[in-house]
């Protein structure tokens, strides 16, 4: 094998093993920064050894053994905490004649728990959501700082600094790096799910022609969701979020018209929806509901997405079910935007008057005053109710509020169709 070829192989193997490796090392040295450095040392060792010996049969265990050895060397050299030294020394002594085989066995046992612990650590609520996202992509996703920076449309220096600060904050917080149990678990899990969905939405917001790393964030978030589902198979909202992401991602190819303008859900070419992802999404949703999670915020949103996914044609959409789901979602996730969507669903299920009634509730609460989609929806309800003059005025109001050029053109077109 040529030198560049074996190097690429080693780097790919390392990418596959990296998250588990760092997770195991964090559990051992209780320090994210040190664990990452040790993992890098193990990569350097592999780059020097494997071209001579070939890739070992169990590369993950080999890398772990190499990293552990470095850890002990480091502790000896710097005469760091005698306690830690003794602990790891004992660990290695216990391993007997074949450390790689022993590590291999131990990794199979603890691996899930360690990786889950690392995910919870990277998504710890002491960090800002942006820092959590960057750290998760770095440690679990194995993305480089440069890739993360491009994905979030910011500079490499900003991301590098964000990650360094996040690691410092984690170090100072005196964490156990364990999987949280008891009442803390729910709150910590919510933080993990928030980060994964944030990563997904960042990818979903990407437009055509942008750096390809941005839409790739969706795939990255889906992968994180699938990994998490494997690690926490009893958590309904994990499956709810996974279902939501898989179903939303199934429409990625259909949501942009050839001229670059967004295509509304009901007008998308459903033949272009990814049936494999829909199937995976529906299976995850079923799992979430079977686990008793039908009322969770992600599961409810997934159930909404599933209503559209199940309809072969837009006219077959079960709007009554969607309206009922929005009624429930509103209770667990109160937000004027949810209310607006709920009004649209009710207008489709029960007629434009029902939609108008719900819209006036939002208006009376004084919410969404400068939000273009509110008058746009109102215009649509009025139009369908036959009140063309009033509808035209609303579309014009919406056109004046939007900052999106394509959307403005679309809204002015609708206003013109009202005879204005």
């Amino acid at each position, binding site marked *: 094998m040529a030198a560049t070829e074996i190097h690429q192989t080693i780097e790919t193997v390392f*990418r596959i093993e990296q998250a588990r490796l760092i997770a195991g090392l964090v559990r051992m040295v209780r320090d994210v920064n040190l664990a990452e450095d040790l993992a890098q040392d193990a990569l350097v060792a592999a780059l020097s050894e494997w071209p001579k010996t070939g890739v070992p049969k169990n590369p993950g265990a080999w890398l772990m053994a190499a990293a552990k050895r470095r850890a002990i060397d480091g502790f000896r050299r710097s005469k760091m905490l005698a306690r830690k030294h003794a602990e790891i020394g004992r660990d290695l002594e216990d391993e007997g004649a074949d450390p790689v085989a022993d590590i291999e066995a131990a990794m199979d046992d603890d691996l899930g728990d360690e990786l889950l612990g690392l995910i919870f650590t990277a998504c710890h609520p002491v960090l800002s959501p942006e820092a959590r996202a960057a750290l998760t992509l770095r440690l679990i996703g194995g993305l480089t700082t440069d890739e993360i920076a491009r994905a979030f449309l910011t500079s490499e220096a900003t991301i590098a600094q964000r990650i360094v600060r996040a690691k410092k904050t984690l170090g100072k917080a005196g964490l156990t790096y364990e999987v949280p149990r008891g009442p803390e678990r729910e709150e910590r899990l919510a933080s993990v799910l928030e980060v994964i969905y944030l990563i997904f939405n960042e990818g979903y917001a990407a437009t055509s022609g942008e750096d390809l790393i941005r839409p790739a964030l969706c795939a990255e978030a889906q*992968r994180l969701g*699938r990994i998490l589902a494997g690690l926490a198979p009893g958590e309904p909202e994990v499956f709810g979020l996974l279902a939501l992401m898989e179903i939303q991602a199934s429409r990625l190819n259909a949501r942009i018209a050839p001229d670059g303008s967004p295509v509304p859900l009901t007008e998308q070419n459903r033949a272009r929806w990814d049936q494999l992802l829909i199937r995976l999404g529906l299976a995850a949703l079923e799992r979430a509901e079977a686990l008793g999670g039908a009322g969770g915020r992600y599961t409810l949103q997934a159930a909404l997405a599933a209503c559209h996914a199940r309809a072969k044609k837009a006219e077959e959409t079960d709007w009554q079910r969607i309206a009922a789901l929005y009624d429930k979602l509103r209770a667990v996730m109160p937000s004027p935007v949810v209310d607006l969507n709920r009004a649209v669903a009710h207008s489709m299920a029960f007629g434009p008057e029902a939609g108008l009634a719900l819209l006036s509730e939002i208006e009376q609460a004084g919410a969404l005053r400068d939000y273009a989609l509110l008058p746009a929806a109102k215009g649509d309800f009025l139009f369908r109710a036959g009140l063309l003059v009033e509808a035209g005025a609303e579309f014009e109001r919406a056109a004046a509020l939007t900052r999106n050029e394509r959307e403005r053109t679309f809204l002015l077109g609708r206003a013109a169709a009202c005879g204005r």
Partner: protein
Amino acid sequence: MRVIVMVKATKESEAGIMPSTELMEAMVKFNEELINAGVMLAGEGLHPSSKGKRIAFDGPSRTVIDGPFAETRELVAGFWIWEVKDMAEAVEWAKRCPNPMPGPSELEIRQVFEAADFGDALTPELAEQEERQRQKLAGH
């Protein structure tokens, strides 16, 4: 990116010989690794080609051909669909697969087309046609 990983048929798979319990166990473990890594989207094993059919096209004619088919090495005995970052990652995962057959065997990895891959082949005319289909579906 998405790839399909095909398990090529062998004399044994075409003869309908089921894998040993040992191989099944190793395969289940491998599949579990793929799932836990978020890589596996689907995977199935296929019956021998003796239970398969081919439809041959020649202009307007369609001829149905019953299996089994010759060229055993070119037949497919099973497949996965994986989501990976690049071909190198797919290759590394494939290397970790237990030998799926009792004797020598082969996996073949092929990349699945995505919209972006069509590039210039998606002419404005085709794009427009798709746009019309879209509008027809939307009931306009």
